């Protein structure tokens, strides 16, 4: 088996980008974009997460099976949140169940 050694330069670069994104997300939070504030915040957080996962956690270079394991956790969380929201977002639609 071979082990992929990520060069230090890559780690430093990823770290720099993460720092910039952190400063950005805090800075942007002061600007009023209405409902898009949360979208932008989550978008930036997702980019940071992807960088940590791919580079710090080496997922860019692991086997496909490992990538499936990584994806499974995320997909299952999405199922939990989506089907739960399916309830809460549709509560006001009929006269019987009042919105929460």
């Amino acid at each position: 088996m071979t082990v992929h050694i990520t060069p230090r330069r890559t780690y430093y670069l990823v770290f720099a980008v993460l720092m910039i994104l952190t400063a950005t997300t805090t800075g942007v939070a002061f600007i009023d974009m209405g409902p898009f504030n949360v979208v932008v915040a989550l978008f930036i957080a997702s980019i940071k997460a992807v960088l940590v996962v791919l580079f710090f956690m080496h997922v860019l270079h692991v086997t496909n099976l490992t990538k499936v394991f990584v994806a499974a956790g995320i997909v299952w969380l999405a199922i939990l949140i989506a089907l739960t929201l399916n309830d809460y977002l549709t509560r006001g639609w009929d006269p019987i169940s009042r919105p929460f």
Partner: protein
Amino acid sequence: MSPIVTELPKIHYLNAAYGLKSWLLTTDHKRIAILYLITVTLYFFLGGFFALLVRLELMTPASDLLRPETYNRMFTMHGIVMIFFFLIPAIPAIIGNFVIPMMLGARDLAFPRLNLLSWYLFMAGGLFTLYVVVIGGVDTGWTFYVPYSSVYSNSYVVATGLGVFITGFSSILTGLNFVVTTHTMRAPGLTWGRLPLFMWSLYATSLVQILGTPVLAIAVALVGIERIWRVGIFDPSLGGDPILYQHLFWFYSHPAVYIMVLPAFGVVSELVQTFSRKRIFGYKFVAGASIGIAVYGFLVWGHHMFTTRQSVYAGLIFSFLSYFIAVPSGIKVFNWTATLYKGSVSYQTPMLYTFGFIGLFTIGGLTGLFLAAMGLDLHVHDTYFVVAHFHYIMVGGTVMAYLGAIHYYWPKMTGRLYPDAWGRFAALLVFVGFNLTFFPQFLAGYLGMPRRYAAYPEEFHLLNVMSTAGASVLAVGYLVPLIYLLWSLRHAPLAGPNPWGARGLEWQTPSPPPTFNFEKTPIVTDETYEYSLEEEEVV
């Protein structure tokens, strides 16, 4: 059948080392399976004891044997003990632990020490629960619904929750171990398409354990936090929504029922082939159906919440999705039946339990479809119809498959043959007792008898008397195997490596097997279940 065996192997996993320390610090998966066997059996009879008290109380319409407050604790403890300390661990932690490395041609699981930790976590969680039993019990129902459990109940909710939380990690670690083992420890030549169906089922079960149990853990933890600090995550008077708890709880607890039944499916797949001496009909479909059930089972939890303030539209979607889960289960039942067709069927004890499973699980599963219909569920929710439905699957299904598996693997685990005549007698008692206990409950529930009540209207009296009578027969049916299985350890004839003439790597080891299972890692060249081979080529 194999020739008469006159002596046990000289050294095997049971006598390889002596002393309490060699058992309590073992990393041998077979010894860990035996540790689970002993403790899970104790919990089974404890849960059965609570059931006995419930059925005794329900023999008469009035709440005369137990006060309602006590009765509430009895059915709650019955549910908690049976679900978390019997149904969920039984087949995976006992049969799975024992058999999986051998089925894969491996020396042990991927993480033997983690396996031992799983048992210790099971024991720790179990001891918390026993402590609760002794000091007065919990009365919230096994579902711990808020705000009763977090605000109003006067029973030991936090201690019980802690027990369930800890045991959940036992389940997670076992599932993790099985998944990794299946991926990385298969013998050369053992491709996924050659895996025994029991492996597919346990793999699917393990997926559910890994992905579902953590959400139960957080749900129970939040109830504990709410109770201890008197805060309002789920408390309506403090802005919370009790239904959020139910979403988190049932996200796990619906897939949990598949944790309880998928291993049983795996057992039935094995037994049906061995005892009809025929390869399963539609291997790929049965394997695929197992994974399908595990995945799909996560999409339907809202059908437990039709009568709550969950949005009607969400209910519609959950109802619609819930119908389709019957498809992979149905595929399995059809494939097992097709395997029997033109097979050479023999009627030893494991096969009797298998027949019992196929019939009773089908009834239980079909009544699930009744419950998936939101309109009908509004009438039968929280009645004995639901109670009968899940007992048909859990007891008529899983417990029967578990007993079948115990009898099937008993010769491998102990090197001894149990007396099959007694086995068949007990299986008959279990079947008769089971139906007499639970069929009347369908009727009572449909006629409106609610569950979790110590007292009920006079019109349900006869049905309840029948049910309690059945429960006593069932209890005898469960005690009889305890006796003859223990008897067989000393007095029964020796089994030899393969008393059933079954296919599979686990039957190529001596009975009982040595600590490291195989002298050399086997190389697999045949497809599974090649029952067309000559008898002589087997052993």
